[in-house]
């Protein structure tokens, strides 16, 4: 049977506030345990939550960026369950009335097509603390520093049909929240986490199959592998006559498999009800307007502009707008070296990307600044150096730093563009190689390369290739 895969993602983006969603405790990753958990975060008796304005602003900003509705009235609810990293015995979240609903995001497919993925809702909630399972005399240690950190849970429609689509959506969303500066997107630190709802059904079926929720997906690679594993597992179960049990599964990246989460075995009854310590969140149109005014140019718009303004192919524009930082780097570079935008794109996507990748660096950590790179591009454009020799310049810029012009001089890479000098050199080469000249003139065209090679050898590669070709051909074909 042919199976169709159905995937929906729930993404938790940690909002980039300075204090927690309901308390004035600090949020700094890596602080000593429990030093950023105040009485409110610890669920002390008598404490009360007060909502952080920045968290609301960021949720609205996200809603506007995905063309969603911003609820004029939304409600915080308590999700009740017992767990040691959940200090109050309930999580403050939004249930029936979320702040954002009904948006969408367009993703690129591998075949070059596009797909619109629906965003069902996005709601504000507080994060839980962390259970540390290292051995404390056979006990588990609880660190509540993360408890109360603001999260935006972004729930997609079950619109994705492959692990690749799911990853494309997740990457797009990741870029978006970073463009919006509402989330640092740091997946190692858990700032951007993903749960995937996966099911399969016979192709053509209209009813959804029973789904499993996979938790703990903290990299794009894991999302893809976990979904692929889970799809295979579900198909195996169904094809051998079994049934899928709706459950929560944990992805184990070491074993590359998903397995049932033991702690979640018991069906939970979360007893959601409106949190009586918080009042309805009323968002006025004026508030929305002030947030709208802070929206940056969004990735898709920027991509389109890169095509129209810089004349880049869509593929280049897409790559260069993957992250806000990369796009910023590129635009700054083009401002400093405006002659050839495509040349700039090639270098950023080629040599620079390769070196960054090799050393596992982010664009913001590039060893070559836009000014340095622009200095080099200008010399390519004005034919001071050839593209080939520019690689040597780049290498020095990357490893030693400095300025392109100085490096070009130091290494003597300046091109020879003096027609007289090139002509004299050609005459000398022809005189030194009469046999080859005779063969060429008797029709062995291939020997043209031989003469070019001789010229480059004599000039250590510095002869301007275009000029050399033209002059050489003229001299060879003269008699």
């Amino acid at each position, binding site marked *: 049977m042919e199976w169709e895969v159905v995937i929906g993602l729930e993404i938790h983006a940690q909002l980039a506030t300075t204090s927690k969603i309901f308390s004035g405790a600090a949020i700094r990753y890596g602080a000593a345990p429990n030093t950023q958990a105040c009485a409110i975060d610890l669920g*002390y008796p*008598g404490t*009360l939550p007060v909502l952080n304005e920045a968290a609301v602003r960021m949720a609205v900003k996200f809603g506007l960026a995905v063309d969603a509705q911003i609820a004029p009235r939304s409600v915080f609810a308590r999700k009740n369950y017992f767990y040691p990293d959940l200090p109050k015995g*309930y999580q403050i979240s939004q249930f029936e009335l979320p702040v954002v609903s009904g948006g969408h995001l367009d993703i690129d497919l591998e075949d070059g097509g596009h797909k619109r993925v629906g965003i069902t809702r996005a709601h504000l909630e507080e994060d839980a603390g962390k259970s540390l399972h290292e051995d404390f005399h056979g006990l588990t240690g609880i660190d509540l520093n993360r408890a109360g950190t603001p999260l935006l849970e972004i729930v997609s429609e079950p619109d994705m049909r492959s692990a690749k689509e799911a990853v494309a959506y997740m990457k797009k969303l990741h870029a978006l929240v970073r463009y919006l500066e509402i989330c640092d997107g740091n997946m190692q630190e858990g700032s951007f986490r993903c749960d995937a709802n996966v099911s399969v059904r016979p192709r053509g079926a209209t009813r959804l199959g029973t789904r499993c929720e996979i938790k703990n997906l903290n990299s794009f690679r894991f999302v893809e592998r976990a979904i692929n594993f889970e799809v295979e597992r579900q198909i195996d179960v169904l094809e051998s006559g079994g049934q899928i049990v709706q459950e929560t599964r944990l992805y184990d990246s070491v074993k590359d498999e998903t397995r049932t989460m033991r702690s979640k075995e018991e069906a939970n009854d979360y007893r959601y009800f409106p949190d009586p*310590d918080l009042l309805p969140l009323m968002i006025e149109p004026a508030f929305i307007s002030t947030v709208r005014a802070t929206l940056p140019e969004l990735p898709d718009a920027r991509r389109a502009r890169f095509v129209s303004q810089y004349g880049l192919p869509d593929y280049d524009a897409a790559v260069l707008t993957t992250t806000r930082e990369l796009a910023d780097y590129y635009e700054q570079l083009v401002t400093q070296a405006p002659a050839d935008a495509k040349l700039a794109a090639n270098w950023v996507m080629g040599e620079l990307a390769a070196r960054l990748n090799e050393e596992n660096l982010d664009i913001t950590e590039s060893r070559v600044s836009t000014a340095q790179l622009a200095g080099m591009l200008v010399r390519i454009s004005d034919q001071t150096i050839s593209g080939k020799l520019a690689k040597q310049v780049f290498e020095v810029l990357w490893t030693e730093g400095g300025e392109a012009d100085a490096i070009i001089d130091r290494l003597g890479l300046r091109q020879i563009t003096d027609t007289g000098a090139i002509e004299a050199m050609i005459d000398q080469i022809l005189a030194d190689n009469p046999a080859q000249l005779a063969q060429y003139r008797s029709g062995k065209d291939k020997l043209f390369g031989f003469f070019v090679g001789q010229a480059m050898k004599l000039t250590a590669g510095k002869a301007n290739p275009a000029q050399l070709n033209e002059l050489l051909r003229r001299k060879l074909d003269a008699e």
Partner: protein
Amino acid sequence: MHSLSVAEMASALTEGQCTSEELAQVFLDRIARFDTQLNSLITVDPERALAQARAADARRRQGGCGPLTGIPIIHKDIFLTQDQRTTCGSRMLERFVPHFDATIVARCAAAGLVTLGKSNMDEFAMGSSNETSYFGPVRNPWDTARVPGGSSGGSAAAVAARLAPLATGSDTGGSIRQPAALCGITGLKPTYGRVSRWGMIAFASSLDQAGVFGRDARDCALLLELMAGFDPRDSTSVDRPVPAYSASLEQSLAGLRVGVPAEFFGAGLEPAVGAAVETALAALKDLGATVHPVHLPNLGLSVPTYYTLAPAEASSNLSRFDGVRYGHRCEQPANLEDLYKRSRAEGFGTEVKRRIMIGTYVLSAGYYDAYYLKAQRCRRLITEDFRRAFETVDVLVGPTAPEVAFRLGEKTDDPVKMYLSDINTIAVNLAGLPGLSLPAGFVDGLPVGMQLIGPHFSEGRLLNVAHQFQRETDWHRQLPPAFA
């Protein structure tokens, strides 16, 4: 000294007739002498109290004192007190010492009030007789075989026996007004949102409100005006100026429209209590008020509505008591679930567990709509009744409780009977209105309380009516003979 009103004590302090330290000592001596009979206090800290009193005296010498500087007070043990044990009447918090003060405790301290101790209460404020306390029942100073009412029974008994001139309380369904009535003192539950809930251990968050106990309306006014007001730490706190309640006490009652809801005088009412309130109504008429019959047709729904919503909120509010970060933890837990279940079973008393279970049930899948949501709709019906009544009258008047103080143990076997005794007070919490109880007579030597209810933020009017009534009556000046 102990029988004076707060206003009289304050002028004695101002005129140098006594020091705050001497005043505190008077009450500490009375506590030492009498509280063995009442059990109204869970924690007494004479050293701390005397140090605060000396600080108040020093402040007075420097000329920086307010109207209540140096006046002793008792805080209900539901309010967090920094570095002082706060139990909420529960074994769960028997050894809990918070690192910060409740807002109202901090405001009292900043005004120079002297904390004598922490008063006994029904466990987590769940009770109407003060018999659910882990620290034993409180006894009524008018008859120690009887209950003081609850849940703020310790505060009410202490003020009634003049173990302190003032006390704080909390009122979720009548927990200030009913014990004030049963103990023969004045107690005020303000409008929901008027007083900060920060540092008050939550029972039912949408109903809880902190309030005051005093001998009379003036004392209550003086305390409320420094306790009330906006607190940025409480999202439900209302940002609205606090009137000078003590400055409007002398307003005439001429033209005051008093509504008398027929439903407050229904079948469950003890006739002698009804008669005492009728007499009090006549006194209000003599003061120039007009009396009008009104109806609160949905009042009967208030008991089942309240006993759905309050436990629902409580079941969630009390989940934090899990034996992990503070509070009681069972010995040798076998695993996490065992830790939770035994710590909570041992830490909570029976009535608290009953309410947690009922609350859990009404929120659970399949019952949420039929109970919780339905009760929220009934809550609106009840609230609308009040709104309509206040279109034609200024205050509502009736008996605070349907009967005088009952005997210890009389209702402990049947919680439903106990719940029904809250019939006159809980609707006020559902609607978030201010309510005041004041002494209005005696039946067989036991005090009768009269309840005044006003629209939102009418505390000033209620205190004014109570004060005018107290100018013409002396019920509030009576002392329980055994504690004179």
